[in-house]
Structure formats: C-alpha cells, structure tokens
C-alpha cells in the first residue's frame, strides 16, 4: 500500500479526524466529474512565483537550494502544464503563519510559498532556501524533519496529491510519525529527494532532485 492509512495513532491528530469506515469504492462511470480536473493557464501563474528567494527587499537567510524534478503519471508519462504549489518553513524552522508559535525568528526576506506549471516534459523547478527542522507538540521532544510541502493537480481530480518532500540523510526521519505513517519502507523512501551535483549550480546553490508520480485514473484501466 502506497499511501498512509487514515488512522495512525502515533500522529495524534489522526485519532479524531480519521474516518471510521473505509471509503466506498466507486463503480466505473466514464461521466464522473472526478475523471477531469481544473486546467491552469500560463497567464495565471507568474514565472517569478517559482523563486521563493525573490520578491522581498533582500536575500533570505539560509542555504540556497534548487529543487527540481518531473511530475509523472503511473505509466511513467510526463504530466505537462499542471500546477505545482509548495510551501515551507524558513531556514530557522519557522513558518510565516500566525499560528506558528515556535520561538525561532521570522525572516523578513522569506515567505516560503511558491508555485509553477510543469513544462512540456512535466518538469518543475523552484529556487528556495533549505527549510529548518522545527518542534511540534505531538509527543515529548517531537521534531519535524526538514520538509517542503507539495501540492500537485495532475490531469484528473482523482490524481490530486498533497505531500511532503524530505531531504536525504535527515536524522529526524526515523522519529517522525508523519513520514513513518507510510507503511511500505520503499514507498516512504520515495518522499526523500536526492542530492544532485548536476542540478547544483557552482558558487550559487545546491541542487535536489525529486520526481512525483501521481496515481492512476480509473480511465487508464480501460
């Protein structure tokens, strides 16, 4: 099983929010609204939105990184022109969100939200800074590993995916109940990006590569 279960008691917030019944399996219906999805126009997404280090008076504090990869369908075909949204904490592990009470500094030069459309080969590319780990109150001494949140649409509403990208070698991964909620270790590893010297730009930014594979659509079975 690729996806985590709804109920994963180690992640305390699932206990009152996980549905108690399994989802109802839909019968095949080629007319179902869910087999299509919204289309996003190039005019709707500013190319500058893919650079999270821009748009502020100065440079953000932190390790500048490039995060790039491809959005693919389950058959390995690229998914072009699909919206990818990301958000993250700053290099100190603090979100630009009013409910984040972690006593780490905000960075006036970093908000931590970006978006782009994939190109004709399904590629996305963001410039950002490496997010910091941060504490949360799930259990005593709980820390989230560094991660970037990803939201991807795909071709159909059934493919809609929200997930998190992690960094290789993070010592917090074995202790994180959200990462560990994915039961299959091989599937879990697919959430970890790869350091890539070819993506790295000399004297400027480290490069990480991470491909995203969306689920099949029921139509693809036909």
């Amino acid at each position, binding site marked *: 099983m690729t996806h*985590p279960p*709804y109920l994963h008691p180690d992640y305390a917030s*699932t206990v*009152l929010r996980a549905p108690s019944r399994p*989802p109802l399996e*839909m019968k095949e219906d080629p007319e179902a609204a869910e087999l299509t999805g919204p289309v996003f126009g190039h005019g*709707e997404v500013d190319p500058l939105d893919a650079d999270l280090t821009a748009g502020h008076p100065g440079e953000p504090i932190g390790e500048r990184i490039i995060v790039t990869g491809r959005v693919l369908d389950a058959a390995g075909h690229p998914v072009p022109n699909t919206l990818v949204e990301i958000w993250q904490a700053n290099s100190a592990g603090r*979100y630009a969100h009013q409910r984040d009470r972690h006593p780490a500094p905000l960075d006036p030069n970093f908000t931590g939200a970006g978006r782009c459309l994939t190109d004709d080969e399904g590629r996305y590319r963001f410039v950002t800074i490496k997010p910091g780990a941060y504490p949360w109150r799930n259990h005593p001494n709980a820390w989230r590993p560094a991660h970037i949140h990803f939201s991807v649409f795909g071709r159909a509403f059934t493919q809609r995916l929200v997930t998190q990208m992690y960094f290789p070698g993070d010592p917090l991964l074995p202790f994180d109940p959200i990462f560990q909620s994915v039961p299959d270790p091989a599937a879990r590893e697919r959430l970890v990006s790869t350091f890539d010297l070819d993506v790295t730009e000399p004297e400027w930014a480290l490069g990480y590569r991470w491909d995203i594979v969306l689920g099949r659509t029921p139509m693809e079975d036909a």
Partner: protein
Amino acid sequence: MITPSQTVGPFFGFALPYDGDWELVPEGHPGAVTITGRVLDGAGEPVPDALLELWTGDAGTRGALGRGGAGVSGFGRCGTAPDGSYRFRLAPPARPYAALLVFARGLLKPVRTRVYLADVPDPLLGSLDPARRATLLARPEGQDVYRFDVRLQGERETVFLEF
C-alpha cells in the same frame, strides 16, 4: 512507484488560499448558488484548519486562479474559518453533484465526497441506505443557499469515496 500522500499540515494558510478562491462565479452572477457548511471531527468539534476543494467537472471560461474576469469556473478552494465553516459560490453544476476534496492536519490523505444538490436517481445515491445517502445531500436553506456539513468520523459520518 506512486508518491505517497502526506498531510497538508496546519500551516498552509499563508500559501494555498488566493483571492476569490471560493468564488467560482463573481458576485451577482445570474443563478449562482452558495454551498456552505462546517467540517467536524469525531467529537463533533469544528475543524478550523481544513482546506476544501470543489470541482464541478467543467472547466468553464473563468480562470481557476485568476478570478478577475466574468464567467464560470469549475474549481474552487476554501480554507475553513475558526468555527470550521467554509463556503463556495458557484453556478449550478451540469451534474447533480459537485466533487469535494477535504485536506486537513490529521488527514494523512484527503477525504473525497460529493455534494448532491438534489436527491435525484443516481447510481451512487441509489446504492446507499437512507441514513448514509442523507450525508451526501446538501440541504436547501433560504434562497440559493445549500448547507453541507462534512463529518469526518463517527455518528452520521459523511460517505467518503474511492476511485
């Protein structure tokens, strides 16, 4: 080789909402209806940090992100308020339902359901007993307003779907 889902977490509010995200049609659009309700957890408490996405199945002519123009969009997004409430303004969909996705802290993957604006003959509705079917039916409430609560867990738990 599918990428696993992870929770949207509590801190998406500065990133995913956008201007007019809940307005699939502009204010004053002829025939527009509003779907509103609350997201509730297994204790009946409101979920103040959920994100809902509505899809009618028809892209329409209005931007999905850029809401400047007139016309109709098939896609909307709405984060819940502190009382767990959300709303969408839309043109009545061509189908008897709109598709709904709910993301939240504590949901490691989204729940998906359908908001039916009428109790019409339908394969999904017809497969459910009356109590379960009722969880998918939006209740008319005043003129052009429909109420649809999402109960994530427990008694009267909303019927969630898998494709």
